[in-house]
């Protein structure tokens, strides 16, 4: 039932109160969707749920725009920007929703028995700093029956990876079981793809874990003379899903320094011997050493790890500013990958800076500047800007180059389909010419959203951009990693040159499927 519009006339200083109502509908058929939770973020957040006719209603809103956020069981979450004009007292919108896909199955051991508390990850190929690699979408744990379910997935191609519970189904410290890709592959290359159509519930994606296997990695940690650590540990972090290091279980180092890791599966690892209680705490351990290791099909023995007093460096560098950017507008940080410690630089007005307390490990560099864009961040001559590198603890100088970025300019436009109907709730992605879209992009501008009329307004710095429109925002990352999608869009939308001052209004007509 539609409710009457309520118009409250307040004093001229007050913002007009607006009623916002709408319908959640199935995108493909227009069928109304009951039981969808709706959040209206208009300065403050109000909540409602759609009724049996798929209808929702908010009143007394005072804002120039609202972001509606819709979610319900069986549907992909959906955001919809709503623009409220100065004369509007009552705004009506229709929010199309897409059925979710899901993956469900069971994790079993070599006897077909359920494996509880296994970590199940759904992954897909995406682009990270221009490199195509496997990325985690979401993870869950199996229940006591070994069962799992991961929903809220947009259509696409996925892979399922299972990490056995610590110590395998039997618990304990010595893991007998290897991680596996669906259905039972040790290597990513042998993982079987699961192609999900919109709304498809893919059941029976069962993963079989095998006992044993892997190789033995052994060696000795050489401790400083006279130093017997109370607790010495050897940790292995493996590069899971191509990039993300996963802290492994700590293995005690024997009194004579020897260690042996068994059933180590293929992959790239970082071995850290440390006297710390945790692999990578927020403070450097007293003694440590780190090395990388690639495990294939053979046992690896005789690894020697010479533990030394942790070298904690004060790294010094200079900022080169091009244009009107001042050094005190620049923020520089080194981010440790595993522990999420962020070491910030102290910047002087003359452009010199120092980052104290840097100890060996893997870091990503980040630079932000008011009115500027980072061009480069070199650590010992190696580029570290939005990129991971291993810092070995040695002397190294830093150098940051920042260029002035022009004032962001307003770009506005509208997205329509081939029949000239407005496309609401779409993502409009601007990628600087020569850059690549990524999850941690250096140059990608955050996507704009189209409102209920298919219109968008966005602030981006002057430059040349490629423009892409993704109708289902939940699919943005996958779409932007799909060469076919990119090719089609690049054919439809020529490069956009954003100039200072007024830019012509864009009309983006989606290519027909």
């Amino acid at each position, binding site marked *: 039932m539609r409710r009457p519009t309520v118009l409250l006339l307040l004093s001229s200083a007050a913002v007009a109160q607006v009623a916002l109502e709408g319908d959640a509908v199935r995108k493909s058929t227009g069928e109304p969707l009951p039981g969808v939770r709706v959040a209206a973020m208009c300065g403050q957040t109000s909540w409602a749920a759609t009724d049996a006719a798929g209808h929702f209603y908010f009143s007394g809103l005072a804002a120039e725009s609202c972001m509606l956020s819709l979610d319900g069981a069986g549907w992909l979450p959906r955001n919809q920007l709503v623009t409220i004009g100065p004369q509007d007292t009552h705004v009506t919108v229709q929010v199309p929703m897409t059925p979710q896909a899901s993956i469900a199955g069971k994790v079993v051991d070599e006897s077909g028995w359920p494996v509880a508390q296994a970590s199940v990850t759904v992954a897909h190929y995406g682009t990270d700093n221009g490199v195509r690699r496997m990325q985690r979408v979401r993870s869950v744990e199996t229940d006591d029956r070994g069962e799992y379910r991961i929903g809220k997935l947009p259509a696409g191609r996925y892979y399922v990876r299972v990490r056995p519970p610590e110590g395998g189904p039997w618990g304990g410290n010595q893991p007998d079981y290897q991680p596996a890709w669906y259905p039972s592959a040790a290597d990513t290359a042998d993982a079987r793809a699961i192609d999900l159509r919109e709304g498809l519930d893919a059941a029976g994606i069962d993963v079989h874990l095998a006992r044993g296997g892997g190789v033995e990695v052994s060696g000795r940690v050489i401790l400083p003379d006279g130093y017997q*650590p109370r607790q010495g540990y050897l940790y292995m972090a493996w590069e899971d899903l191509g990039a993300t290091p996963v802290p492994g279980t700590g293995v005690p180092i024997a009194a004579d320094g020897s260690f042996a890791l068994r059933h180590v599966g293929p992959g790239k690892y970082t071995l850290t011997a440390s006297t710390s209680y945790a692999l990578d705490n927020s403070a450097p351990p007293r003694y440590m050493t780190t090395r990388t290791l690639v495990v294939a099909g053979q046992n690896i023995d005789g690894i020697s790890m010479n533990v030394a007093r942790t070298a904690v460096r004060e790294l010094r560098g200079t900022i080169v500013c091009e244009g009107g950017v001042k050094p005190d507008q620049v923020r520089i940080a080194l981010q440790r990958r595993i522990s999420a410690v962020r070491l910030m630089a102290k910047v002087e007005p003359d452009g010199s800076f120092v980052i104290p307390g840097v100890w060996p490990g893997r870091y990503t560099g980040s630079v932000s500047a008011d009115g500027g864009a980072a061009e480069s961040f070199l650590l010992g001559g190696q580029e570290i800007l939005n990129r991971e590198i291993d810092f070995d603890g040695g002397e190294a100088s830093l150098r940051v180059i920042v260029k002035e970025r022009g004032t962001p300019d307003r770009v506005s436009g509208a997205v329509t389909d081939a029949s000239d109907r407005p496309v609401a709730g779409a993502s409009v992605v601007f990628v600087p010419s020569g850059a690549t879209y990524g999850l941690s992009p250096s140059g990608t501008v955050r996507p704009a959203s189209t409102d209920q009329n298919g219109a968008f307004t966005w602030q981006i710095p002057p430059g040349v951009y490629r423009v892409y429109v993704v109708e289902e*925002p939940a699919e943005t990352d996958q779409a932007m990693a799909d060469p076919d999608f990119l090719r089609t869009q690049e054919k439809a939308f020529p490069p956009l040159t954003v100039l200072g001052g007024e830019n012509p209004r864009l009309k983006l007509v989606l290519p027909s499927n």
Partner: protein
Amino acid sequence: MRMLSKSAWLAAAIALCLQPARTQAPEKASIAGDVVDGSTGRGISGARVRIQCGQDDPLFATADEQGGFRLTGLNFRSCQASARYPGFMGAQEAALQLSPSSPDGQVRLELRHYAVIEGKVTDTVGVPVAGVAVEALQRYPIGEPHNGYIYNDGNYQYVGSQRAVTDDLGEYRIAPLAAGSYYIFVRTGSYYASGPQSQPFDARARNTFYPHSLKPSDTKPVELAEGKQLRADVQIARQGGARLSGRILGLTGAQPGSFAWVRIIPLSPGGSGGFAKVTGDDFTAADILPGKYILEAGQFAADDMFSQNPLAAARRTVEVGAEDAAGIDLALAPTPDVSGTVIFESGCAAVPVWIQLQQDSYTPRSLHVDTDGRFVAQHLFPGQYKAYVQPETLANTFAASVKLGDTEVLKDGFEVTAETTGPLRIAMSCATR
């Protein structure tokens, strides 16, 4: 010399023949036993048995129709035997010491059926809620030592047993559970698995006890018998609260780039904690439930991303009722540096030590102290602390005393105020405890 009679010779010969031959020491050991259903005593056919001896690769056996098993050819070692079977609680462990004098281990492994609680979590309008944590809590009197404390209503503590996360349909399943009474508790603040574009957090959605209560005293526990499965659907309770607002005094003229936050720490059962919104010197916190709270303000340097070293702090206890409360001022004072020394009793070698200063609800402050024994814990938040000290080496030393000034604080901890400077004196002993 007296001669033996014929009969005596014969007896001696028979005795020699009857005497068992000297046995050779066994070279290998064995373990045999039964896997039984603990509630019926019947053997569990097909149960799997795992024997782990030292660091050897584990050995496995499958129980026969009567639940019996036997593993031979084991080395003489300390072994752990465990068994499992679907539907029964996780592997029960038994320790065995196999040696040449005791080569045949016998073990009886009892497994018990586990119970299950499952259900659906919905919001106030009946929409399933994905990605919230659901916990099965057990109630114990205050003061009993238990790990995993979750909730305290003044008379009882509620301790976490198992937890699950709702799936995209709002469904959860908690297992394996032992028979007993459980309070089902949904944490609304833990939306972390709902989807690619999760909705904003609804500050009025409260942590809820099954079926729809803010407090455990308003509800009844789920009674679970061994091996049973029960359903417990929870509807999240939604309730508004008071608005708190005030000012952080002393921020003016602060160092450029520094930032501040205000934390709300509930002292009353079921209180709603979190962070206030800070704009300039002003702070506001909406929807705070009635109860007693500590409001704590901290000011941090721009580069202190993890808010670990407050430059200045303030702390104030407030009683929140049903009405909004304005004008709550928090006056910042510089945070103190507490210095100290570690000394070793006569006869104990000085070794590096590791000190953890643990304040309730904060990440502990870690200090590595060299053999000179001097340390300074900088920029401590005011509050109640306990010091945990241990040597970083294998040295057999322990903290026998921790004194703040002349007061012994090892057991009960100590309070840090803006005026506290120490000294904190830690005495390490190497005597037998």
